């Protein structure tokens, strides 16, 4: 039995409505993916420039002065320009890559399909969500073209540096206003996206798709949307305050009697800690906004690859929800050295240690499920396993940083840089790669080259460790972060380590060209993909065509008979899996 349904907006025929201002969640998902791809290339090139400068301080980087004549006279990066590139690297990567790709891109494309819907309930808001995000990106990038360049206050934009204006340094005038405006606009885009994700999950599930039959990816996107709702709604007013301190002369974040560059600032009475509270109330959930969708993708890919359900589906959901809930209570651990009351540090330290429990449970479930499984090795499953490795390695250093007494020593060092790059950035990027190799056939109707994918994995996996493991060593040796050059005596012996990291970063970055080649070559010349190349069970593999038609299911919504992971079962028609849409009776899996 199936319900009859018709798409609630007609398939567009013109180019503009089909590919540019499209209402189709699949096109919007691809647009987000494209945006993230452009952003990650820019972000990576910025990191190369920074790494070259850190390895060889006075190195002339050919062509750099084209990017900024003031920031790189004679192609040699100034200290200020280093900070500007660092700010833009962090901002682009966190907001426009780690948030957009695993959440907005894959979520837009697959969430409605996986719950058996034709589209999101508010397609106009969905379209706005992407275009608002695009405008935010353009506003941010435009600050590169200012005479004094983009903001230099770091992606965390600590006040009062961020709130003072041009007196605080290059890029702190209009560049800073553009930064705050861009992120404020970005928040609106993500709120509109979250609205659609939540309503689609709650209201548009097809017949038989109970909450406990949703794939783990849908749960992850749903939980992330709920987190995003709280986090971005708080960051937005913070950005407004920041802009007002610049353009209206208010004093939200600038204290009294502040002298900067020999000039007494006209502000009075503001609180620098206020910015940190507002920012990190967003900032810590943001870490999980990046990582939970990746956890969902990894779970989904892993189950399909090991051909059996995870040890517990419900415990994964409960753990992800617990992480989301606790993520709002731990933000103060970013502020142990901010001068905050030491009792507050204790208050934030405790839930920070507690939050490792659900994260550990998820990891143990993944690893336990791998035991005695018939793992299918391909690029997608390798990146899923790589995610677990990165997440564990990066997470373990979190135990140290969660304790205020240790964090005071390590906070301003490369130890923290190594920690968050592994646990948040690289892990989430591995999740994005895993999702790309897994879903590319469904998104574009062609297979990616698996051999190239495996080569890409091994180079990236080894490369990421070569880059980020030494960061921990540098941190423990006392190497401060955010410095553009290491001129102190005690830092001199560490420069060879920096050079090693730079070489590793360049090689690992170059390895991404293999991925880009594979992506674009496969898009046009890849082997045509079958409807269900990985023998998956969830609804995205039940679409009548590949890629799915405009209304996803060809006018007839699917009916769901099973939980999403019926693997390792006997199928009367052959195979070791039963699809969610198959009415075939199967023995309970014991989940």
């Amino acid at each position: 039995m199936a319900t009859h349904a018709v798409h609630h907006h007609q398939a567009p025929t013109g180019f503009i409505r089909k590919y540019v201002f499209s209402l189709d969640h699949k096109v919007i998902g691809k647009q987000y993916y494209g945006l993230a791809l452009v952003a990650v290339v820019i972000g990576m090139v910025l990191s190369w420039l920074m790494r070259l400068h850190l390895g060889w301080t006075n190195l002339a980087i050919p062509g750099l002065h084209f990017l900024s004549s003031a920031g790189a006279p004679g192609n040699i990066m100034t200290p200020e320009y280093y900070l500007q590139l660092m700010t833009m690297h962090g901002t682009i990567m966190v907001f426009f890559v780690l948030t957009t790709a695993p959440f907005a891109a894959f979520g837009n494309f697959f969430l409605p399909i996986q719950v058996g819907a034709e589209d999101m309930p508010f397609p106009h808001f969905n379209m706005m969500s992407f275009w608002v995000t695009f405008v935010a990106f353009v506003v941010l990038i435009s600050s590169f073209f200012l005479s004094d360049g983009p903001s230099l206050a770091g992606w965390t934009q600590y006040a009062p540096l961020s709130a003072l204006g041009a007196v605080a340094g290059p890029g702190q005038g209009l560049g800073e206003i553009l930064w705050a405006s861009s992120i404020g606009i970005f928040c609106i885009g993500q709120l509109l996206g979250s609205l659609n994700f939540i309503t689609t999950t709650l209201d548009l599930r097809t017949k038989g798709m109970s909450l406990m039959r949703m794939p783990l990816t849908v749960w992850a996107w749903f939980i992330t949307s709920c987190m995003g709702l709280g986090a971005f709604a708080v960051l937005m007013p913070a950005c407004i305050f920041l802009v007002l301190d610049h353009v209206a002369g208010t004093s939200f974040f600038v204290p009294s009697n502040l002298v900067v560059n020999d000039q007494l600032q006209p502000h009075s009475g503001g609180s620098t800690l206020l910015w940190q509270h507002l920012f990190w109330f967003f900032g810590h959930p943001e870490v999980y906004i990046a990582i939970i969708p990746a956890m969902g993708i990894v779970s989904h890919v892993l189950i399909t690859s090991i051909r059996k359900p995870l040890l517990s589906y419900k415990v994964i959901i409960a753990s992800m929800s617990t992480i989301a809930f606790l993520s709002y209570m731990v933000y103060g651990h970013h502020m142990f050295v901010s001068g905050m009351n030491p009792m507050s540090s204790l208050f934030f330290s405790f839930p920070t240690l507690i939050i490792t429990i659900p994260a550990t449970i998820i990891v143990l479930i993944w690893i336990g499920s791998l035991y005695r499984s018939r793992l299918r090795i391909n690029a997608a499953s390798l990146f899923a396993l790589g995610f677990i490795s990165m997440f564990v390695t990066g997470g373990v250093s979190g135990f140290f940083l969660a304790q205020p007494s240790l964090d005071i020593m390590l906070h301003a060092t490369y130890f923290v840089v190594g920690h968050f790059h592994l646990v948040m950035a690289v892990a989430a990027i591995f999740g994005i790669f895993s999702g790309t190799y897994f879903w590319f056939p469904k998104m574009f109707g062609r297979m990616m080259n698996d051999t190239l994918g495996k080569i890409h994995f091994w180079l990236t996996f080894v490369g990421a460790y070569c880059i980020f493991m030494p960061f921990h060593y540098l941190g423990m040796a006392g190497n401060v972060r955010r410095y553009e050059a290491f001129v102190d005596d005690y830092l001199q012996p560490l420069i060879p380590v920096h050079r090693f990291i730079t070489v590793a970063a360049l090689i690992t970055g170059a390895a991404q060209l293999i991925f880009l080649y594979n992506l674009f070559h496969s898009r046009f010349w890849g082997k045509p993909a079958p409807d269900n190349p990985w023998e998956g069970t969830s609804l995205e593999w039940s679409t009548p065509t590949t890629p799915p038609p405009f209304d996803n299911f060809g006018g007839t919504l699917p009916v769901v008979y099973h939980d999403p992971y019926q693997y390792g079962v006997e199928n009367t028609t052959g195979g070791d899996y039963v699809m969610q849409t198959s009415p075939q009776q199967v023995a309970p899996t014991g989940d």
Partner: protein
Amino acid sequence: MGTFVQDPPAIPKPREDKLGPPAFTDGGGRDAVPAEGSLHSVQDYSPPPASTAIWVVIAAVTMTFAALTSALIVRQGASLDWHHLVMPRLIYANTLVLLVSSVTLEISRRKFKAFSAPTVREFRRAEFWLKLTLALGVLFVVGQWFVWMQLRAEGLYLATNPNSSFFYVLTVAHALHIFGGLCGLVYVVRRLNRGLLHKSTMDAASRFWHFVDVLWIYLMVLLWIKI
């Protein structure tokens, strides 16, 4: 004349139904099909998306104003430059206008909700209360404009002192949400006149309007205590 459309019924209507956009399937996991005799396949009820969406919006706006409130508390405690600000009397009149608008909207919503086959007269009467709400909403925004002008005349600008900064930020942020609520009501009127209005849409728009009303009362108390 327009017709008021019932909520999407439990049984999905075909798309060609002139009453408006079709029901979004039969709503979530209702009548879930049991597999392998498992009773955990739920019978959960899924409301129309607009009903869920409005709570999502309310949650987000609440978070924004919670952030603004905490900022106000922190900023007030941060230094001694906080001076008491006497709110113009006009603001109390504006408050009254907004409260009345909630009442008129509720009258309108209940009348529409009770309709099965309304006469022209009944329909116009219900529509009158809806348009009155719109007018009162606009009147509130205009009133707020005069409040800001009055403060300006007293020499209290955005950057004059922290309390005036927060006063402007909070009231302007609220006015923007009122503007959003007005857009929602205009949408309701337009759909109504085309005969395409779902009750869930009207419920959502009125829920938001009542929310911004309650939000204003909260802000008044906050500003009265803190400013």
